[in-house]
Structure formats: structure tokens, C-alpha cells
């Protein structure tokens, strides 16, 4: 008797699934309208999600390997699971580089996680083209666009007007500096032009202080110095003209701005302004040098203060930390308020259940974005969450983003994913002095044309 009951039950379930799969796509937004309540009121949402009793496993890969972000994410997942007894969230925490490698491998099989770290644009476009991501435009637009309107910077995660993910952090790369060391070298004001910057480097060096810490062993920290110089010299147009494809491409990576950026970068290398052993230093090592007060400046994003603290001897980092925008290069087209930056988001895997999308909505809710802001994990994108930024450094970054005259997403995120490796490898040669800026630009151009 019991067996018959089970058989009947499973047939009903199978039928229900088949019917729900048969519904036309136009009905999907209507079905989704039940869910948005979850964004603000998670516990209540449990009753609204269809097939609540059906157990759902959500796989989630993130790259926050250190506290407080690590435990914050875990707590959000635990809270969500407590409110939705049918949902089980399996978190995989991976280090940045390991994540990229592992994701590449699973992308081959098409078995991507339901929710995973994404930086948007370039790499994400390829994932979209390979059919690995889910279109969540309808979910964002549901309930009169409630979710969409609650967040900023969604464009970085959209392709051809369709959204495949949402950001949870958008920041900027800026110079971080040690105010005590600046005072020690007799520097009164932060540099706003490139020649002032070079002069300050010379002053610091003369005072026996390492001017800049860079982790060129990992390559991308140094690449950002070059990227900023390109943006300051050539303005927004130089990169856009070179990065476009087809007939829209009016420039090249061998243009004057790119070459000159190489020569300006070379001035820093030739001046001996970087720490000892910078060619082999990792990103953690670079932050250890700066965090321990062994170097006066480093170029880094919104994540820098927390990484500096985590890698410093006393786990506190630099006591008197300041921030200034990358200086303007004299005669360049870029403004000192133009920003190179980017952020973090979550992409939604093609096989994600509605529960996974609902969970991401919960993750980017105002309350949770305030948690992210309050713990210095990132610059929140949820409107109104910025007030929770406790750290004055994060407020500085947040203001820089808000006041930016132009927002340039990281070069390697805009370009096809293979280009990140090519640019990083090429620019490292300027740091090592093994190639001229012309040769480096020619290598990048050749790599771009081969894509």
C-alpha cells in the first residue's frame, strides 16, 4: 500500500515538473512575481517559492578566502537555509587564481556552479556565448523592476541588454599611501600630476624609504599602473579605439598612448622606486611590504586595506592610511577623476534553480549589502547601503566612484579572457627591462589580432 502511494506521489511530481517545463517563456515573469518579497523579507518568502517541500541544492563558488568576508557569506547562507528548510547551499571557497583555473575546467563539461564569482564583461561574454549562464533579466524586472532598481552598476554584468549576473561590489583602483612615511620624507600634499608624483618618489627614496610596493610576480598588480597611465595619457578613447572589434576598431595597442605609458612606467623601474625583489613578489607579499610600513605607496583597489591588514605582522596594517587618485599626466587626455576599476559579482549558472536566483537576491538585499559595507569587504552597489561604510578609506573609494568623470573597467575584464594573460606577461617585461615599450605594445597587438 505504502509503495503504491509513493509511486503515485512520484508520478504526480514528474507530471508537475513536465508541466512546469512546458509553460511558455512569456509566463515566466508572472511566475517570478511571487518571489521578490524574499529580497526584503526572507523568512516570509519560504511560503511563496513554488514546490517549497522539494529539496534543492545550490552550489556556490566564491573567492573570499579570508575573514570577515568568509564568515559573512557563510552566515548569509546559514540564515537563508534556516529560513528555507528545503534549500541546501554548498559553498566552495577558492583562492582567486585557483578559482579561474577550476572554472575553466568545469566550463569544458558545461557543469558550472549555480552561483559563482564573476567580474563581468569580457570573460562573462564568452561564458554567455557558450550557453553557460542563465538570463535573469526577467527576475530583475519582476515587480516593476524592484530588484533592478535596488542595485547600481548592473551594466557590467549585462550582454546585449540581458543580465546574467549581479554585482555586489564596485570599486576603484587608487593609490594607497602611508601618511607617516610621507611626512617623514617631507611631502606635504599628495601628488596630483605625474611629475609631482615622480618628484615625491625621488624624495621618499632620498629619505631611505621604498616609494612603491608592487607584486609583479603575480603580474596584474603592476599591469594596473600601466593601464592607468594609458588611461591618463590617451583618455577614454585610446583604449576604446584599440579594444573594439571589426570596423569599429579605429586604434591599436601600438598607438602613442600605449607606448608612452610604457616609457612612463619605465621611469619608475629605472628610478628604483619599487621594493627589493618586486619581480618575484606576490600580491600578498606586496601588501605585506606596504602593510608593515616598509613602502610608502601601493596601487590597489578597494580590497587593499583589508589585504594589507591581513598580511601585516600585527594584523592591523598601516595606522595612518591615506588615498589619492592616480595623478594626471601632463599633456594627457585623461582627467585625474577618471577611474580604472571594477568589482565583484555573482554570475548565475545555466542550470540554476529559481531558489538560486532568489538566494542571490537575498545576498544583494539592502541588509546584506550593509553587512558587506560595514565589514569593509567591498563597496556596496545596493542603493542606500553606502551609509553603512564604517571605514573612512572605503568612503573615499566610494566617493571616487561616485564622482568619477569616466569609469574604465579593468582592461583584462573588457577584453577577451585570453588577453588578460597576454597583457600581464607583456607588461612584466617592462618591469624586468627585457623588452622596450614598443616591443611590449607590439606583442599585445599581435595577441589581440590573434583572438
Amino acid at each position, binding site marked *: 500500500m505504502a509503495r503504491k502511494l509513493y509511486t503515485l506521489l512520484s508520478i504526480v511530481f514528474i507530471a508537475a515538473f513536465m508541466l512546469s517545463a512546458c509553460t511558455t517563456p512569456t509566463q515566466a515573469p508572472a511566475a517570478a512575481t511571487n518571489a521578490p518579497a524574499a529580497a526584503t523579507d526572507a523568512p516570509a518568502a519560504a511560503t511563496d517559492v513554488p514546490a517549497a517541500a522539494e529539496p534543492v541544492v545550490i552550489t556556490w563558488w566564491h573567492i573570499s578566502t579570508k575573514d570577515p568576508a568568509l564568515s559573512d557569506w557563510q552566515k548569509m547562507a546559514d540564515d537563508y537555509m534556516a529560513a528555507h528548510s528545503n534549500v541546501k547551499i554548498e559553498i566552495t571557497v577558492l583562492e582567486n587564481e585557483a578559482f579561474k*583555473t577550476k572554472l*575553466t575546467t568545469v*566550463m*569544458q563539461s558545461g557543469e558550472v556552479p549555480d552561483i559563482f564569482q564573476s567580474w563581468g564583461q569580457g570573460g562573462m561574454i*564568452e561564458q554567455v*556565448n*557558450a550557453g553557460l549562464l542563465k538570463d535573469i533579466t526577467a527576475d530583475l524586472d519582476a515587480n516593476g523592476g524592484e530588484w533592478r532598481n535596488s542595485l547600481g552598476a548592473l551594466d557590467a554584468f549585462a550582454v546585449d541588454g540581458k543580465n546574467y549576473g549581479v554585482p555586489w561590489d564596485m570599486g576603484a583602483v587608487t593609490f594607497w599611501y602611508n601618511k607617516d612615511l610621507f611626512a617623514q620624507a617631507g611631502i606635504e600634499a599628495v601628488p596630483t600630476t605625474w611629475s609631482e608624483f615622480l618628484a615625491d618618489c625621488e624624495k621618499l627614496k632620498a629619505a631611505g624609504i621604498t616609494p612603491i610596493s608592487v607584486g*609583479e*610576480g*603575480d*603580474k596584474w598588480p603592476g599591469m594596473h599602473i600601466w593601464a592607468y597611465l594609458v588611461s591618463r595619457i590617451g583618455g577614454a578613447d585610446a583604449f576604446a579605439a584599440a579594444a573594439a572589434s571589426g570596423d569599429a576598431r579605429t586604434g591599436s595597442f601600438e598607438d602613442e598612448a600605449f607606448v608612452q605609458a610604457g616609457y612612463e612606467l619605465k621611469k619608475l623601474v629605472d628610478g628604483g622606486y619599487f*621594493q*627589493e*625583489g*618586486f*619581480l*618575484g*613578489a*606576490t600580491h600578498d*607579499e606586496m601588501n*605585506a*611590504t606596504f602593510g608593515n610600513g*616598509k613602502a610608502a605607496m601601493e596601487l590597489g583597489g578597494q580590497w587593499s586595506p583589508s589585504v594589507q591588514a591581513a598580511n601585516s605582522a600585527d594584523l592591523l596594517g598601516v595606522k595612518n592610511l591615506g588615498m589619492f587618485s592616480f595623478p594626471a599626466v601632463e599633456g594627457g587626455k585623461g582627467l585625474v577623476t577618471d577611474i580604472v576599476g571594477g568589482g565583484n559579482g555573482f554570475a548565475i549558472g545555466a542550470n540554476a534553480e529559481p531558489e538560486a536566483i532568489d538566494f542571490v537576491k537575498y545576498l544583494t538585499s539592502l541588509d546584506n549589502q550593509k553587512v558587506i559595507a560595514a565589514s569593509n569587504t567591498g563597496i556596496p552597489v545596493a542603493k542606500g547601503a553606502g551609509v553603512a561604510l564604517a571605514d573612512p578609506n572605503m568612503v573615499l573609494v566610494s566617493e571616487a566612484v561616485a564622482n568619477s568623470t569616466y569609469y574604465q573597467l579593468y582592461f583584462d575584464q573588457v577584453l*577577451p*579572457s*585570453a588577453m588578460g*594573460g*597576454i597583457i600581464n*606577461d607583456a607588461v*612584466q*617585461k617592462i*618591469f*624586468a627591462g*627585457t623588452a622596450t615599450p614598443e616591443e611590449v605594445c607590439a606583442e599585445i597587438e599581435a595577441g589581440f589580432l590573434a583572438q
Partner: protein
Amino acid sequence: MQSNSATQNSVLPKKGSRNTRLANDRLVVFLFLLPALILFLIFVVYPIFRSVYYSTFDWKGLGQPVHNIGLGNYVKIIDDEVFQKSVKNVVIIIVLSLVLQLPAAIILANMVGRNLPGRALFRTIFFLPYVLSEVNTGIMWMLLYNPDPERGFFNGILVQLGLHPVNWLADMNVVLFAVFLTLTWKYFGFHLLLYLTGLQNIPTEIEEAARMDGATSIQSFFFITLPLLSSTIKTSVQMSVLGSIQQFILVWVMTRGGPVNASETMATYMYRFGLVRFQFGYGAAVAIIMFIICVIFSLLYQQLTRKPDYLTGL
């Protein structure tokens, strides 16, 4: 089994049964081999052919490969300066291993294999690094190599001695040797163990006889121990060369093949240009080239070292 069936055959008059018996034996052998054979074909032979197939494509790894370029990848690889550099680095590592690492292992094996007091302790200490995972080893040595004299062990010592600190992993002329030092530390315990086993097989009578004839311990080492170790040395050299060709983890963890390819090996080259740059066809071609080099080396080496072993005659 063989001799058993032969005696039974002499008893049994029927002629056909011998053949049936043999056929049965073969069938049993085949059946026992089958599971291993299937696994071998699926997980070793098939992927090799699949890699050969992929290596003829210009393929980014997403979707099906469509753009066949024949031997284009191979031509590009052999032409690439970075690949040539990586081959050169591998050759340097192989030569250094054969000249420094293995002789050191032989000498130490002789010391701890014989009558040194506390030899069990030394054996454990020397073998310990081999047990450690490669990533742990890499990270540990990165800390030792830290350029800051206040944090890096080696530079701390150098500065204490009044010498200039060295940028172990950042100086393009030093980095390969720094990595080699770590490789030696990590792997020579394994070779030491091989030689210790080899030493156990050498009968003590031969050495005793030599001593009676008035041979010094140095003579005894060169004319008795070394020749009798020859088969072990053969194995050890082959393991060392193949291991060097395939070396990846330690190098990648410590330097990522850098700075600017100064410590690139063939395996890190394959990873960088195949996986990091999303050129899976190109990466497959590098893998095939490495495979061919390994096979050619193994065949040549076995031809060259065919002289039978003194002890076993094998």
C-alpha cells in the same frame, strides 16, 4: 602452471586437449587482464589520441573544435622563443640533477646506509621532504627566500654575515637555481631511498673480500659499490630526467615560470599558453611534444643502458 600442465599432458594421451588447455589458459589470462586493459585504454590511450586530435585545432576550449590548422600549432611552438627557453631550462635542471642531486644522494645513502650512529634518524630526516606536499614545500621555500632580510631566512643569514641580500625569486639569473635547490631538497630523499634499497642488495662478502685484499674504502666504493649499484642508478636517472621534464607544481607555486619566463619549464609553458590563455589546441600540442620527448628519451635510454646488471643479470 606451465610445468604442471606439461606433466599432465605426458599422462594424457589425447592430443587435442593440450591445445584446449592452452587456449583456456590464454582466455583466463585475457579475462584477468581485461579490466585493467579497459581502464588503460579509456584513461590513458584514448586521451592521448584525443589530445593528438585537439592539437591540430585552433581551439579556445568552448564548444566544439572546428578550425583545423594541421601542424600549425607545432610549427608555432617550435618557433617560439619562450618554448625554446623552457626547453633550455629543463635541460639545465636535468644536468644539475644528474651532476649534483644524484651523486649527493649516493654519497649520503652510503653514509646513512652503513654504520653511522643514529642512521635511522638521518634516514627519516632526509626522506621527510619527499613526504611533504609540493604546494606546502613551495610556500615554505617562498617564505625562506623572502627578499626582506627581516623576514626571509636566507637573506637574514646573508645580512648577518655581512653579505648582500639576494633576490632569490626575483632575479632572473638566480631564480632557476633557487628553484633547483628546492627541487633537490624535495626529491633527493626519494633517490636516497632508492639507493638505500640498492645497497641492501649488495652482499657484504664482496666488500669484505676487497678489504682483505687491501682495498681502501674509496677504492671499494668506486670499484665495488658503484658498479653493483648500476641498475639502481639506471632507474634513478630515468626517474630524475622524466620528473624534471614534467616538473610543474613547485615551479608554478613559487614563480609561475617567471620573472619573464626565467624559470619556465615545458609544463608551465603548456599551462600558461594552453590554460591561462585559453588556447587548448595549442596546449594539447605542447603536451604531445612533451610526450614524444619522454618516449624518445625512455627508448634511447633503455637501448643505451642494455648492459646486464652485475648482480641479477637483468
